């Protein structure tokens, strides 16, 4: 919980596009990328990294509560993906699930390797905190939503991030981007519709 809080205190959230890798029109599926990575394809590895790096960092921050350790765990996750991509079997599940498992294992390894010296025992859980099942569920939702956001075209992704996490109104976003308000709403609607398609499993 601390980690989740820690990175929300930076609000208002305005995406810094320069810090995010350029969107590429790569139409290859995650399964195809993993197959190529298994054969040592560096470009496929970079594309998979672009798709999942923020999702991995997101759950690492939630779990570890420390940005430095979370960044290390993110690096470890992708090193592990590079080494073990050949073990991914599409018949046993979707790549997002497999990658999620790899990330969680890397995070757990990181926690074991460098236990937080300030925490002698597991902290007591406050009455209002979610239980373990709820925490896992929240982590999975976060993983899938963040991954789905990465599938959006650049102009829609920026809009979603501004609309939900910048604290700006649609009018302020329109002014910020120099777009008519109607265009901002139309694009936001298109982005949400595209996200609905990506998240159909979660939507039930």
């Amino acid at each position, binding site marked *: 919980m601390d980690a989740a809080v820690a990175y929300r205190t930076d609000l208002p959230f305005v995406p*810094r596009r320069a810090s995010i890798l350029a969107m590429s029109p790569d139409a290859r599926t995650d399964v195809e990328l993993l197959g190529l990575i298994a054969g040592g394809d560096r470009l496929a590895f970079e594309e998979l990294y672009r798709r999942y790096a923020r999702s991995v960092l997101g759950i690492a921050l939630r779990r570890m509560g420390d940005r430095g350790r979370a960044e290390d765990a993110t690096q470890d996750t992708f090193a592990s993906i590079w080494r073990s991509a050949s073990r991914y079997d599409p018949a046993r599940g979707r790549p997002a699930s497999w990658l999620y498992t790899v990330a969680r294992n890397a995070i757990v390894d990181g926690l074991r390797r460098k236990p937080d010296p300030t925490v002698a025992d597991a902290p007591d859980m406050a009455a209002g905190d979610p239980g373990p099942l709820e925490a896992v569920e929240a982590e999975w939702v976060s993983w899938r939503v963040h991954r789905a956001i990465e599938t959006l075209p650049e102009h829609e992704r920026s809009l979603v991030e501004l609309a939900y996490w910048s604290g700006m109104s649609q009018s302020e976003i329109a002014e910020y981007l120099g777009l008519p308000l109607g265009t901002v709403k139309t694009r936001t609607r298109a982005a949400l519709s595209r996200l609905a398609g990506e*998240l159909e499993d979660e*939507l039930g």
Partner: protein
Amino acid sequence: MTELDDLVGNDLEPGERARLERVHALLGRAGPPPELPHALERAPEPPSARVIPFPRRYRYTALAAAVVAACALFGVGYLAGGAGGSEPVRTVAMSGPNQATADLALFEKDAAGNWPMKLTVSGLPEGRYELWLTREGKLAEPCGAFAVVAGETTVPLNAPYSLKAFDGWVVVPANEKTPVLTT
């Protein structure tokens, strides 16, 4: 959180509105994705092993021959004497392309600092291979050579080093530099 109507207008079909409402709720639950810090802007370099070249090829060959001889002697002594515990103190999994895998079992270190090992490999093409310790992605110290004919191969090997000084293991084809198995 901003109301959905404020974001997309209020002229949606009921079915589409319900669909976007669910996405709207998920976005609220997920919270913002973190920004990637500078250090993570690019994909990390894939772990790879680069060779520290020996000055002359004959030195490499001589070293490999010495290692093979030492390992063979050790293996004979180890098997004959039953040195070391019967249970490994650590097992290292390795993997590579085309489903190739290996398990490296390390047994209790002897008084001289040798780590007896048992390497079991499968999925590698027929040929001769070498096991190396790596440091910072480079081949650092050899731990012996072995041959693979078909199926699973199990060989005793030895690492006469302080393992804390290294960060991984790789298997490379004999006299080559590209790993076929990595930790």
